[in-house]
């Protein structure tokens, strides 16, 4: 069994040499092993691969990128593989490039035969090539070579599907791919490094021509795959997003992979489809994170109508009150409105260890204000991080949709919502109907969230309110250059040691968070007028710096924290109005 990682691997040739192949594209739980041999900043796939590579004795790698080349160097030094081959793929796809690919094909064949005396089986080669000329997107496996009819039927299935979703970008792990396939009610194709290979038709005299000529044809076909970002000419990549049956693109990026961040900006510019960008790192994804994003994406392509989620409880009552509850990671908020969209009550409690409990508390508090019972609410929509754990909610919507709805209701002139919450921040762009056009979320990393400020306040031994007040009195302009929370913290500590005033440091921190947010805004293509929501909107220091950076005033409503809950309440009303 030969392990490989890249679609350019000549697996048909390996099959002809009597071998079976396996795509090594799996996740790992940690990178300890790889980091011992390389460096934490190597791409996460290469690091995961280093661990999995030991499962097989034979490997064929493609000279893809710096990370893979270094992973190969490590394996070479470890001398632990019986057969280890690095295929030197050119960057150029012209005649010279083909010539080089062919030389590599011949070299691989020779090396393999030296290692394991077999001969090239032409019939097996032709069979595999035929299979690969019908299956294009799903990764070609030996099963396909053995039973090409299966491949054909899969392709037909794809052809007959009215619409499908493509995963484009950096390689998607097999685990992530299956999770996405499970969650998405459309056929999903993998157009990243593991799939997306398609050979053309065999030459008519394929049975008779010499091995050399056959390899000429094969080299040409390999270089005619839809190119990845490694290749010099990337124009043909358009085919990936210009398919008319495509209804949405999931754009995958891999942490510490540089190739695809360049591609993403282009795809975003050129493709007029809903695009969801996901950041993966070859470790198991947090289900919640992924679900929120996928749901928002599907809402965006109106997939929800096609695969309606069952309402959680049939407890709808006909009354005039509608609730929205926003279960965030730090606080839980609830808003109740009437049929005229007037806010009647609201509450804000901190989210404890149990989402459900805090939600109950928020519900009781609003009911107390109105002197009603929870059952008097006609419907309740939940949103936020914990939205799926709230038993009393009639339905749930993502925070993207709810924030957009709430903010648009508060001020229909706004086009961009800047929501800076305790644990995450998001930028949402809407059009003049209030529909979401694009959004960017920041998670995992604390920089650019309320949490960053909290951690810094701790380093300064201040509480948040004090920090805001102190920061306004700054005198000399100082820059905190580190973006990473850990670095920033040590920078703050050394500034304190340097006797810089606390006010100046706080101002520096405010600037740093503002610049982080500004870059998210430009990534989302933000446009004025802006509304800022979330708890940090009350932090005048940050708001001021952000306004300076943007050169625009930020609209801040009287209830910046309640925007998501308000949006959810509006959704609850819409639910009843049908």
């Amino acid at each position, binding site marked *: 069994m030969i392990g490989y990682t890249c679609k350019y691997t000549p697996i048909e040739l390996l099959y002809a040499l009597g071998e079976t192949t396996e795509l090594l594209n799996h996740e790992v739980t940690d990178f300890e092993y790889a980091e011992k041999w390389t460096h934490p900043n190597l791409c996460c796939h290469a690091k995961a691969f280093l661990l999995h590579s030991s499962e097989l004795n034979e490997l064929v790698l493609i*000279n893809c990128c710096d990370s893979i*080349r*270094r992973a190969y160097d490590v394996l070479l030094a470890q001398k632990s593989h019986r057969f280890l081959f690095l295929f030197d793929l050119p*960057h150029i796809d012209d005649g010279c490039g083909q010539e080089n690919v062919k030389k590599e094909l011949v070299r691989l064949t020779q090396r393999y035969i030296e290692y394991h005396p077999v001969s090239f089986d032409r019939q097996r080669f032709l069979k595999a090539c035929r299979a690969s000329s019908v299956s294009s997107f799903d990764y070609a496996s030996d099963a396909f070579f053995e039973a090409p009819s299966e491949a054909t039927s899969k392709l037909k299935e794809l052809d007959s599907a009215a619409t499908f979703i493509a995963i484009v970008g950096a390689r998607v792990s097999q685990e992530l791919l299956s999770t996405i396939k499970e969650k998405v009610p459309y056929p999903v194709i993998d157009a990243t490094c593991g799939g997306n290979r398609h050979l053309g038709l065999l030459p008519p005299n394929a049975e008779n021509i010499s091995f050399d000529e056959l390899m000429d044809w094969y080299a040409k076909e390999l270089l005619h795959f839809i190119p990845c970002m490694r290749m010099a000419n*990337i124009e043909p990549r358009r085919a990936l997003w210009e398919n008319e049956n495509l209804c949405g693109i999931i754009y995958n990026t891999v942490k510490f*992979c*540089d190739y695809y961040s*360049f591609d993403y900006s282009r795809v975003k510019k050129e493709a007029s489809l809903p695009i969801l960008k996901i950041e993966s790192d070859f470790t198991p994804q947090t289900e919640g994170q992924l679900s929120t994003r996928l749901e928002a994406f599907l809402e965006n392509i109106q997939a929800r109508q096609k695969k309606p989620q069952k309402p959680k409880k049939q407890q709808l009552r006909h009354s005039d009150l509608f609730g929205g509850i926003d279960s965030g990671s730090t606080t839980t908020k609830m808003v109740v409105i009437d049929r005229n969209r007037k806010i009647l009550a609201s509450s804000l409690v901190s989210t404890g260890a149990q989402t459900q409990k805090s939600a109950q508390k928020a519900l009781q508090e609003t009911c107390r204000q109105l002197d009603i019972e929870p059952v008097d609410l006609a419907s309740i929509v939940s949103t936020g991080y914990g939205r799926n754990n709230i038993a009393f909610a009639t339905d749930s919507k993502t925070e993207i949709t709810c924030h957009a709805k709430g903010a648009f209701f508060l001020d229909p002139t706004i086009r961009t919502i800047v929501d800076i919450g305790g644990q995450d921040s998001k930028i949402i762009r809407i059009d003049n109907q209030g529909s979401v056009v694009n959004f960017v979320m920041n998670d995992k990393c604390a920089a650019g969230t309320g949490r960053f400020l909290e951690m810094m306040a701790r380093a300064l031994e201040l509480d948040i309110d004090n920090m805001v007040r102190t920061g306004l009195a700054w005198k000399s302009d100082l820059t905190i250059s580190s973006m990473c929370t850990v670095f920033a913290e040590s920078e703050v500590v050394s500034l304190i040691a340097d006797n810089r005033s606390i006010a100046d440091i706080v101002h520096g921190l405010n600037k740093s968070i503002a610049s982080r947010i500004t870059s998210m805004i*430009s990534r989302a293509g933000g446009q004025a007028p802006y509304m800022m929501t979330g708890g940090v909107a009350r932090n005048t220091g940050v708001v001021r710096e952000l306004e300076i950076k943007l050169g625009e005033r930020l609209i801040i409503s009287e209830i910046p924290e309640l925007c998501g809950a308000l949006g959810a309440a509006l959704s609850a009303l819409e639910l009843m109005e049908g």
Partner: protein
Amino acid sequence: MNSIVHRFGRAVSSQVPQNPQLSRNILAAGYTLSGWKDAYFGGKGLKGVYAHMNAAISRNMSHSFRDSSRSAMVNIFFPCEILYAMDIAPVFPEALSVYIVNSDCGEVFAESAEAIGISESLCSYHKIMIGTARTGVLPKPLLIANTTLACDANQLSFRYLAEEYGSPHFIVDVPHTVNKESVHYVASQLKNFTVLLEDLLHSSMSESKLRYTVDRANRTIKAYREYLNIRARTSLPISMTGELFSLVATHVFLGTPESEQYAIAIKELAQKASPDRRKKRILWLHTLPNWQDSIRVLLENNERTEILASDMTYDTLIDMDPEKPYESMAERLVYNINNGGAQRRIDAAIAYAKKLHADGVIVFGQWGCKQTMGMSQLAKMALEEEGFPTLVLDGDGCDPRNVADGQMATRVNAFLEQLEASR
């Protein structure tokens, strides 16, 4: 960093968003004056040699900001002899980014690149270069050309810039396989490059001028090689900035009179210098963070230690044959120690550590440079096996935002103490 530089940087940064033309002019003026780093000026000995190189690079910078129609944007490994033979000046990201960070205005450019989604983990040299182009500060060059040696960043950022500017783009594909066939493949691409240049300039390449340029490059390489031989026995107070000058002299500037003069002058200085047994001798792998005062204090101009060489300066000091200019240039790419697997670079490090009598080695993990960071542990294992204590030092040669300054200084200091203890 001194306050004049700081003010200069602020003047540039503040003009970038609204007025790229103005900040371009400020930068050009700054580089023309090029006297602001007065530490290198007017001095004798090594300082004087550095001053000349600094002036030459500054002229090159200000030229690229002023008259870009005769400049080509290239990566550091691109064989520029072809350009000089056609009177075209190169602009290259390492120098650009280093000069910009030393003018204290790098942040605005790096952020501008990140704002369009360029990953934060991209090599900062390239990120800042993209920023200067995107903000409109760096004007459109005549053409853009890069080799695929030694890293992916070349492939990505130059292609992006070519699209952004709408400039002609040429890629020299350097195979990973180190052999004669690869040399032929690269040589034929370099010939095609000349044809492209001839078309763009409506003039033809003078073969004799090319031979002349390659001959000068060859003399420079010889002189620099001799310098390193002598360096094995002597001590010189070279600085990090100085090593970057050497890098430029043995790469993009190769073929210019300035680079030849530089190599000869530094060789003559080494001949006159004497050994200094007290100092710990450090071989450095990769680029150097010359903006970082805390590290400079530890490694430059002191009684404790000296840097011997950065391995980027000796990556291909092989003879060139003026009668076969294209093959010679191609050989320098294919046989470069950065090509063909980490082991070649590690072997070269071991050979030079022995030859230069190094006491220890620092592998500089430049932010975003996967090819150096990826081999850092292998290099450490191999070098230590040969008896050279090795420090893997992560940092950034041009973007202070990615650096934990205090921590870095502590690590270097501890390493020096380690070397001293083993005396």
